[in-house]
């Protein structure tokens, strides 16, 4: 692709920054809504209880209170549905409950919503919430996933025995079992993938409005895509034609997958707005975020690798038990399965079977969080591969090199029926190891040891899938003033899409990025869309914008050809206009826009793009860390990444995605621990108690790319939003296990490897 000043591959500064960095971002809580009332929720203090209201009138009579709603007030509305049910391996399905907008008589996790108060302001609403009288009858409960599967465990749902929501499989069970039975070596690991809480800095929020004249609702919401919410509201919850509900999203303060989902508060603010005849706003506070937004990860996996005597992987067997929380969240059940579809990673493994089960507990629901199944899968596989290297007394790089799918095997059909188009896994690994100075590690380790520190070196080679499934339709318009407008159905929540899409336009139309406006997040302005998730926006959205740009450039040449008296074939796009190639005779886009023939239709190109297959970003993360054996404290000393993202659209945005993802992975590996007490209270429910990494906790990284363009994407792009969080957990943990194994023979430690956990492991090993 020809390099353009502001085009694809350029390190263009973000067009969003001027707004965000001066405090002029418009997040949901910043949006003005004249006459707005405030909603607050009464949430269950019990993990499992039956309840009855004994006093609603006191709250209703309090000053400033406009309404107190309970389940009885919203019987006409459907619950929040799960959109990704999983069938059992035998083809049967287990009943799948909706999440009620407000619980009627039973709550199933701390934070479950039982009543909604709408008042003139936040304080009045909260005071009234406290005044609601409820008779709680606590019931037996279960918070631990393995415990929930035991016969005597309390049941979250009466028609789901053993709390088993699904018991599915992927791959060939009998054939795999046979390979294991005959295999000379089998290496097994049991790993916990800790439950995480997203903690985007902007908590969720929503404003509901109802226009009685038009009989139409508007929801302004901090989301990752307006169209999915509109569809679920229309078809499942409110049962209205979609055009009766407008959904708007402004600036979004982080999402990480978790702002994708429909949540009960959204239809409720709409219903309340109609009842009261005025806008109703709900803004989550941080405590509510911990209790009421979907959590992530949460599984226990037993993984086994069958090997031959040379260390070749013969078969992989996975038994994954995933936590679902109390309700099946929007994509909750599928996320555990999705990870299993990537279980064999970058390796050529003949036999494969995974059993994937989903289990209810009396806890906050679990759903997609940055990476959504793939970080879990990569973690299991890369930990297991390192264990195999130890078992076979070979090196981690040698066993990987032996088992990687080779470039010559591409396209490669995995046992999970995916097709990897390209990938040079050993190339990325070798480059990362060289850049990380693997050869110099021994000297550094010896130096650390002299200072009483245990240095560890570990890495992970991952492959993940992005940008599968739905496409995007959108448009590019030349405006009358010569600027351009992109309409797109993805939703930036921090990634910098306004800059990225403008660069794609700049690539085709040779204009500065600030002459391109990107419109997203409004169902009235953008007809369709599938939102941002699964790292799809850049690969899918950019391909659509590229097609529209290409198409529009032809339309603009056609408009220009009359005025320039030249054939379209002789024209080229250059320098903010169209010119006759090889001459200085040109017309600017602004002048084209004013031509008589430049009708709105002629200035607008609509295009769509639907990916035929996922893209498969991959790479190697290398971590070098030190453990203080006296305290269990870990410091990451060096971190090196070599990734294959196909084509780099903007190196700044790309590095930002990778850095942020890595730090979330470091948080999962070392500090983020979601703790429920036995009675179902979330103990880690504040930023004081939940270990989100701080500036001093993480160092800097070396990041570089070794790109192999995707063949399934027109621009060669592969998604990059989640990869950082996928490569990082296994890299950090392999380095930690390396340090502990070298010095104490410790071969296993679970995440999060807090100082206490490491301290205990060292003490246990020293005994």
């Amino acid at each position, binding site marked *: 692709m020809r390099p353009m000043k502001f085009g694809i591959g350029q390190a263009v500064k973000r067009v969003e920054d001027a707004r*965000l960095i*001066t*405090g002029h971002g418009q997040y949901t809580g910043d949006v*003005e809504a004249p006459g707005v009332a405030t909603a607050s929720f009464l949430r269950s203090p019990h993990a499992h209880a039956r309840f009855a209201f004994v006093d609603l009138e006191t709250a209703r009579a309090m000053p400033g209170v406009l309404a107190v709603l309970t389940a009885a007030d919203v019987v006409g509305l459907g619950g929040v549905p799960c959109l990704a049910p999983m069938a059992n391996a035998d083809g049967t399905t287990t009943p799948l409950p909706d999440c009620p907008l407000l619980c009627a008589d039973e709550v199933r996790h701390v934070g479950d919503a039982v009543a909604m108060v709408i008042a003139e302001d936040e304080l009045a609403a909260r005071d009234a919430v406290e005044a609601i009288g409820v008779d709680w009858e606590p019931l037996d409960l279960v918070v631990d996933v393995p415990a929930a599967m035991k016969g005597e465990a309390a049941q979250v749902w009466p028609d789901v025995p053993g709390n088993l929501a699904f018991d599915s499989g992927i791959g060939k069970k009998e054939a795999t079992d046979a390979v294991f039975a005959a295999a000379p070596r089998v290496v097994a690991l049991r790993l916990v993938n800790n439950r995480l809480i997203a903690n985007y800095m*902007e908590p969720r929020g929503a404003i509901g409005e109802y226009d009685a004249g038009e009989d139409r609702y508007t929801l302004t919401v901090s989301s990752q895509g307006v169209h999915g919410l509109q569809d679920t509201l229309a078809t499942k919850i409110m049962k209205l034609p979609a055009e009766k509900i407008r959904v708007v999203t402004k600036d979004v303060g982080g999402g990480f997958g978790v702002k994708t989902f429909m949540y009960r508060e959204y239809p409720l603010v709409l219903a309340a707005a109609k009842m009261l005849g005025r806008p109703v706003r709900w803004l989550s506070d941080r405590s509510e975020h911990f209790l009421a937004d979907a959590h992530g990860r949460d599984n226990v996996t037993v993984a086994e690798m069958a090997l031959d005597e040379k260390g070749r992987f013969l078969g992989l067997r996975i038994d994954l038990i995933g936590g679902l929380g109390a309700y099946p969240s929007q994509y909750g059940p599928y996320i555990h399965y999705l990870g299993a579809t990537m279980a064999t990673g970058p390796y050529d493994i003949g036999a494969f079977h995974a059993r994937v089960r989903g289990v209810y507990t009396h806890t906050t629901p679990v759903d997609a969080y940055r990476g959504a199944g793939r970080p879990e899968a990569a973690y299991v596989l890369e930990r297991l591969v390192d264990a195999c290297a130890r078992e076979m007394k070979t090196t981690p790089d040698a066993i990987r090199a032996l088992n990687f799918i080779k470039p010559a095997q591409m396209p490669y059909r995995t046992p999970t029926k995916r097709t990897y188009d390209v990938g040079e896994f050993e190339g990325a690994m070798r480059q990362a190891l060289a850049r990380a100075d693997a050869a110099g590690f021994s000297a550094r380790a010896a130096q650390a040891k002299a200072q009483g520190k245990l240095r560890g070196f570990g890495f992970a080679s991952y492959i993940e899938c992005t940008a599968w499934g739905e496409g995007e339709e959108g448009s590019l318009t030349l405006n009358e003033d010569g600027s351009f407008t992109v309409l797109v159905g993805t939703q930036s929540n921090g990634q910098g899409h306004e800059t990225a899409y403008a660069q794609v336009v700049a690539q085709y139309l040779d204009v500065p990025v600030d002459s391109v406006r990107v419109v997203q997040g409004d169902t009235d302005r953008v007809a369709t869309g599938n939102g941002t998730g699964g790292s799809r926006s850049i690969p899918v959205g950019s391909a659509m914008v590229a097609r529209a740009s290409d198409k529009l450039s032809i339309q603009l040449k056609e408009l220009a050809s009359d005025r320039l008296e030249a054939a379209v074939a002789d024209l080229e796009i250059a320098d903010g206009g169209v010119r006759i190639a090889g001459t200085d005779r040109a017309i600017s886009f602004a002048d084209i826009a004013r031509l008589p023939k430049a009708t709105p239709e002629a200035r607008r190109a609509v295009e769509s793009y639907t990916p035929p297959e996922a893209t498969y970003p991959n790479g190697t993360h290398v971590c070098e860390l030190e453990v203080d054996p006296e305290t269990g404290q870990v410091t990451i000393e060096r971190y090196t990444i070599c990734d294959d993202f196909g084509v780099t659209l903007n190196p700044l945005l790309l590095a930002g995605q990778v850095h942020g993802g890595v730090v979330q992975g470091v948080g999962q590996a070392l500090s983020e621990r979601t703790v429920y007490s036995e009675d179902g209270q979330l103990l880690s429910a504040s930023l004081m108690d939940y270990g989100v990494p701080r*500036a001093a906790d993480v*160092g800097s990284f070396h990041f570089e790319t070794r790109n192999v363009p995707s063949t399934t994407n027109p621009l060669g792009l592969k998604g990059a939003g989640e990869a950082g969080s996928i490569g990082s957990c296994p890299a950090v943990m392999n380095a930690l296990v390396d340090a502990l194994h070298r010095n104490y023979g410790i071969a296993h430690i679970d995440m999060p490897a807090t100082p206490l956990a490491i301290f205990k492991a060292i003490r246990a090993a020293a005994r």
Partner: protein
Amino acid sequence: MRRSIRFLLGEEWRDLSDVDPLTTALDWLRTVERRTGTKEGCAEGDCGACTILVGRMQAGRLVYEPVDSCIRLLATLDRCHVLTVEHLRRPDGRLHAIQRALVEAHATQCGFCTPGFVMSLAALWLDDPSPDEATIERALQGNLCRCTGYAPIVAAARAMSEDDEADRLRFARMRREAEDKLATIDASEPVTLRHGARVFHAPTTLEQLDALRLAHPEATLFAGATDVGLWITKQMRDLPTLVWLGGVEALRRIDETAGALELGATVSYRDARAPLVAAFPDMAELLDRIGGAQVRAMGTIGGNIANGSPIGDMPPALIALDATLVLRSQRGRRQMSLEDFFVAYGKQDRAGDEYVESLRIPRIAEGETFRAWKISKRRDEDISSVCGAFKLRRDATGAVAAARIAFGGMAATPKRARASEAALIGRPATRETFAAAAAALATDFAPIDDWRASAAYRMRVAQNLFERLRLDLAGAPTRLPAREAAHG
């Protein structure tokens, strides 16, 4: 008496008489002023998204500090110069040097935490034009970002003083003008605000405070509001009568005499740092691990004592140093040893009309050693599990001649470890002696189990501090070497 609060928001006066005393600065900025650049991320001073810059008049000059506006009460902005993220850009639209550095480093993604980082960096930019790595980390302890991974923000902090002359000139002019304007307010005039049943008093002299204390023994006294702010935002408590001590200049006194350091009750951690560290070098690490920069600028050492928390970080150190407290009321002054102040959980030896006026900390004498260690789940912005402080004197033979030891997080109050002290005094400073002192801790304390730390952990780690102390006294390395530049 003034019946309104007056302050500068940027270059504009605000004169507010109808103020609910429980209103936070953040809520007022966002809902009344509609300055929505300042964000609410947690409403409990953990995340820093709400950071603003507050200039406080001190001897006719403005001193600017980073403040968590989510727990700072609006009424306490009286006589201050308030700057939010919207004020940094120059009138011609050009970004401030800090903002330019953030853009250049690609240090913002979703942008929600960014205004808070901008303002924390602004405070740093004013304090230190060329901060080192550790200073940058300290300045950012109180700010969370979930998108960038921090490295670009730290890079921006290193670069923010490049090409900043125009911004410095502009700031100096703004500051002079604000100082001139604020000097027109009579600093000796007390303020009283009434709003419905709630009342807010800001006395300016000790005598006024004495009278208020007598008239309203039920009133909530507060200064930095780093704890009281949470009563409002998290516990939704109604506090009908508030007495803010921040206007009483006499309570901000710092007196450094030959024998002691005397701190007025409302001296902040930030202001106390230099004199405390000069007198007790080992205090630096402890002070730098209390909250973040915002909390240290707001929170006061007197408040940390007066609210009587069993896990307050300062009382153990101050008890070990044999600090004395001056309590004051209209009846007069009363002096007591700090350790006697803490009677039981939530109960202090303070009559209804009394308040903490000042704190006197004797300097350590020749031959004395002071050490204090905070143990918490993480380094930054965390509450102590255990805080231990030791003052020891050894005689010419090396034997322990005197010992004062105190712990926080080990009992319902910060408390002396008298059995441990007895086990040390008169004994040679050997491993056996310190082991005996550690063992004696079990007769001094029966710590509680809670979800911050188990009783067994608290006891174990507290006992281990004796071994650490022994090694430290023997000159053995006991702390992690300074981390190599983490963001290199």
